[in-house]
């Protein structure tokens, strides 16, 4: 991501949420937008091993029903 694109992206993300960043914070956010791509890359790299399950009232993969002993509702 180029510096210009990073700045534009950070400005868009902040304005969409209504966060009044200063110019300095905007530059920081742009830098973090670039760095964060690399930092979160391991999550994407691990994805092939992740189960393909949505958020339901039960877990299709193992048939465990939410609220049963030991189950945890994830978010």
């Amino acid at each position: 991501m180029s510096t210009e694109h990073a700045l534009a992206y950070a400005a868009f993300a902040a304005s969409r949420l209504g966060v009044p960043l200063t110019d300095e914070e905007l530059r920081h956010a742009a830098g973090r937008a670039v760095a964060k791509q690399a930092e979160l890359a391991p999550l994407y790299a691990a994805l092939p091993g992740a189960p393909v399950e949505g958020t339901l009232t039960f877990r299709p993969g193992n048939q465990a029903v939410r609220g049963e002993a030991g189950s945890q509702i994830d978010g």
Partner: protein
Amino acid sequence: MTVMDPPLTIADCATALRSGQLSSVQLVSAMHEYANAVDPLLGVFTTRYVEQSLEAAAGADRELAAGLDRGPLHGIPLGIKDIIASREGSTSASSAVVDPSWWADQDAPVVARLRSAGAIIVGKTSTMEYALGEPDSDQELAQPRCAWDLDRWAGGSSSGSASGVAAGLMLGALGTDTGGSVRLPAAFNGITGHKPTFGLVPKSGVHVLGFSLDAVGPMAPTARDCALMLDVIAGPDSSDASSAHRPAVGYAASLESHDPDLSGLRIGVDLAAIRNREGCDSTLLGLFEQAIGVLTEEGATIVAIESPSWPLAALSAAVCWQVDALAYHRDLVRERWREFGRGIRAMFIEGLLVTPSDYVVAGRVRRMLCDHVSATLADVDVVLSPTHGTGALPYELRSGSSVDETAFTAIWNLTGGPAVSVPMGMTARGLPLGLQIAGRPFQDARVLALADAFQRLTSHHLARPPIAREPFTRPLAAAGKESR
């Protein structure tokens, strides 16, 4: 009891209160006197409730004298992390951005339970801003320091709760734990901190950091003390939608009253992953292996396991709480951005940079990690690791929100099971290191029992920071009390 041998644990103080060797008023007065002397250095409290707590202590003494005994916490001074509501005053969350009407004049259910059990609320303890942003020295707020070294950070985010217990300004405290915020400061300050199973302790009246990660937990000198507190605060509450429909099970009663016998206990350890982790203190691995040796000598079996990727877990949890925090504080962020400290503003920026796909991917990785941990805990009873790779960090390097700092701890928030940190020794610099014991969901009694067994077999938890020793004796001496 001589003035050089004051009761340092909830359990011992409970005994002393009932034998007449000590009154709650003396105990609470003594702790406020220590706080007068050392809190300007430590930054434990955001607010102290001196008059209210002394009045409550007098009431507790009257009740005991009249034969009304509310249980082991009766007359015991406790601190409350200042993101948890208590009726004595407003909740500051260590922030300048406060809504004074939030839970005004009300107790969070956990505080109400402690109060009903006779506990004395001595004050609110400092935290990172809303348990997220590091203390901002530009703001006139408590700057919490490690009780063992005032040039070091107490750990976050239950900072004041940990250093306050370590310094002897309270006998126990409530903390909250989203990625390690009970266990990390407990480890840094040489006390015991327990993150209960998700949903075991109600979270109403507690500011949110991670909706599906947060847990309110006890912090105290020993695992037995944590169990005594958990006995009171655990159990369902209809005001919390994520509260588990499970009754408390008598955690303190489940601890052994005799020498531990760990025969048959299967302990999972990924020694290779710990050995290969970079940046750890040079004493960490040796102390961890010594801790394992203590348990195997009593009959426990060590089972080699392959841990899920700790960095991946910490990353998944961080994405979750960065977004959750932004969602929870959305209105204040829009309206009062400049009033927040620098640290929490930086964390909000992290949240707004998380893309929808990042969030979904983090959730899917979380499910994968849950499956991994479930499979591991089908074969072993508990999993051991260090709580953190180093002792308390120098104050200028403080963060508490950094992903890497939660490497050993966040996995148990993501997957929901209980985890306790107990002291396991000291670095060459004399800083405490923590041993983490984690287990299956709702088997809090098992991890606390093993933590208690470890403390029966070792003396690491008895070490007190220098700042705790001298001031602790003076008020009791002034009170002229002697016993034992």
